[in-house]
């Protein structure tokens, strides 16, 4: 090669290196300028290389790949071949990590649609857990400031595990109680001071249940004492976290989840182990202040969206339930609030008349 040729190669190479350095210098300021307007980078700093690769390198093509994977997932689901679906859900969500709808859909699909296809309870429980893990361990990680992710995660606890719509809901409740008892002790009540002094236990708790003891303590102080073996307690926890990220405007679905779950916990929020591997859910009147706080928080934030009616219904139910349990003081307290806030002809004649009209008949 001639000397001229060598010289021009050196010039081109030097120019290339100089341009690369220049691009590197501008990279950080550009990224900084981009951050406020584009939330796409949120949560990617600690993401695994696969996610960074798919998000950055594939660019616009990742949508097409996600569509193709989604088509395959639908086809396999129709065919009753479920093995790949966790894998496909993982890839699809990783291709679009900041689209909450995708996380929500796949978690719901795994926990609701696929789980019920399994003939064995342990298989069903595994699929429900896959849905939980997808949202809790991944979805929240990539969308930490989207309250919807927290609300949907809470919904899995409130409805799928805590509700009774699934034929095997009792099995889920027992399995969940075991999981929590393994971490927090058999009564499902942590000693927060002891927990905070033990980083190994804190880490194990986070890995197994996704819980942060400091936040648990706050939730417990606000609404508790919560029995963490009961799924609705976790619904309250995640909905509370959703409200935290929602900011000052609040987020009605999360608030609604908190008061609904608290109302459910009031009726059946204390878990007791029965003979064998059975559980019984009992009412927990200690949660009454927490339920009222949840409703009143929601009332102070949102107007005209059914919170009032829900609160009134709760107070009616609580008045009658507490009376039936012989707790006249709390029962009367509930009635006073009911009549004070939502007076009706039914409450106009006072507590005794209300109980006589709607309470249990003598000898019934």
């Amino acid at each position, binding site marked *: 090669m001639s000397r001229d040729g060598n010289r021009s190669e050196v010039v081109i190479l030097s120019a290339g290196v100089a341009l690369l350095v220049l691009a590197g210098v501008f990279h950080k300021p550009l990224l900084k300028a981009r951050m406020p307007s584009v939330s796409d980078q949120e949560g990617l700093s600690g993401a695994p290389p696969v996610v960074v690769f798919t998000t950055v390198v594939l660019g616009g093509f990742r949508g097409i790949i996600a569509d193709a994977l989604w088509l395959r997932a639908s086809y396999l689901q129709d065919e009753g071949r*479920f*093995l*790949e*679906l966790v894998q496909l859900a993982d890839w699809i969500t990783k291709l679009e990590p900041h689209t909450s709808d995708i996380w929500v859909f796949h978690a719901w699909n795994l926990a609701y649609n696929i789980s019920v296809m*399994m*003939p064995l309870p342990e298989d069903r429980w595994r*699929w429900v857990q896959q849905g939980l893990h997808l949202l809790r361990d991944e979805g929240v990680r990539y969308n930490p400031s989207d309250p919807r992710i927290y609300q949907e995660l809470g919904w899995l606890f409130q409805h799928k595990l805590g509700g009774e719509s699934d*034929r095997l809901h009792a099995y889920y409740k027992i399995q969940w109680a075991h999981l929590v008892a393994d971490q927090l002790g058999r009564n499902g009540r942590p000693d927060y001071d002891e927990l905070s002094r033990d980083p190994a236990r804190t880490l194990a708790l986070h890995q197994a249940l996704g819980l942060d003891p400091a936040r648990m303590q706050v939730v417990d102080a606000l609404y508790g004492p919560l029995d963490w073996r009961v799924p609705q307690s976790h619904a309250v926890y995640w909905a509370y976290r959703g409200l935290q990220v929602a900011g000052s405007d609040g987020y009605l679905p999360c608030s609604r989840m908190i008061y609904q779950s608290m109302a459910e916990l009031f009726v059946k929020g204390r878990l007791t182990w029965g003979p064998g591997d059975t559980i019984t859910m009992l009412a927990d009147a200690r949660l009454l202040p927490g339920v009222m706080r949840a409703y009143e928080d929601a009332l102070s934030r949102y107007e005209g969206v059914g919170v009032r009616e829900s609160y009134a219904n709760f107070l009616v139910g609580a008045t009658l339930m507490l009376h039936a349990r012989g707790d006249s003081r709390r029962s009367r307290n509930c009635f006073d609030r009911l009549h004070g806030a939502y007076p009706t002809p039914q409450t106009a004649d006072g507590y005794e008349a209300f109980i006589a009209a709607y309470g249990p008949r003598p000898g019934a």
Partner: protein
Amino acid sequence: MYNRIFGIAGLMFRQAVRSRFVVSLFCLLLTVLVGFTLTIQGDGTASGRLQVLLSYAMGAVGSVLGMATLWLACGSLATEIESRRIHLVVVKPVRVIELWLGKWMGILAVVLLQLVAAGLFMWAAARIGEHRTVAGTPDGIAVREEVLVAREWVEGRRLGPPGDRPVRWSLSCPELPEGATGMATLSYRFLSAWRDQPPVIGHWMLRGEDGRIWFESDCTANQDGVNRLKIPLAQLRGGEPVELLFEERPNAAGQVTGATFHPEREVELLVPTGGFGANLMRALLLLFCHVALLAALGVTAGTLFTFPVAVFASLALVVATLLAQFFVFSTAPERVAHEHHHGGEEGPSWIERVGAHASETVRMAMAPTLRYRVGLRLAEGRRIPWREVQAAAAVLILGYGGVLCLAGCLVLRRREWALPV
């Protein structure tokens, strides 16, 4: 003649090695396979993970090897013609068919080498997966009896009129080795319009031709998804027809669900008749037949076109073949939602008619090439029969490959080598 073919094949192989194609392809395959092994999670069970790994590994090997082979094959003759290195060969007493076959066989040697490496990797991954589970545990049993096995499957043929109770099917049990132990699996599905309905309580029976009951078992089955019932092989008679009966029983509340069986796959009996190693080999041989066809397509395209055009044309044909299946499937009358207009109904436009006709023609012409696919069979522990491998070799290599070989030879024979490209 054979010496000349093998001579050209050897040269082709050496050229592929020298151009680092073999090493690059090996590295690519290894990266893909190791990547899958490290990242795949399955459904949370060891058997599920292994099934997904085998299925993806097989698909990835097929895709990577297929594309790379097509690329290599397109360049094998096209680049030699363009660079005029072909003159060194054609001036010798070599017939065009020997040239074509030599190139093709050289490429197949490369493919075979890669397939053996990929096969060894998959076999090792499967065995590691097996050793990581404990025999006797549910997961260990699933890995050994449902994944790392070759099971023949027999679909039941419904007997009697619809609504007949008990429901009856006829099954032909495959031949079993003497003293076979282990479990066969009866897989069955119900048709359910609603999710999470109460389970079906029922009773299964296997009855021989002489009316003797071979096997019977009560079951509690899900109305959704696929149910499985294990049947000891000792209670089956290989090679004999058998009658399968199901009768629903009332549940604890005295109710009967009246569940009906899924119309497409009512019942299916899976009987283990072989091991994973041999099944993997047959799956790889099926793959080899497909890749051999792609190699033939590439070599012939290379005789017709320059290298980039040959790659484009071959890829276009492959894509058209795959898409034609999809178009024909999705435009089938039963899948098209018909809109009812008031007034005159508009038929399909001429473009749609021509497109549909072209798709149907391509599909008809190429359908046999897509018939012999491994699919999920290896991962689901379903046996790939030898006769299918033989049929694939006959159709894909001798049939389609032969036609492509003839076409390539015709082009080569008429080609003016000295003309500018």
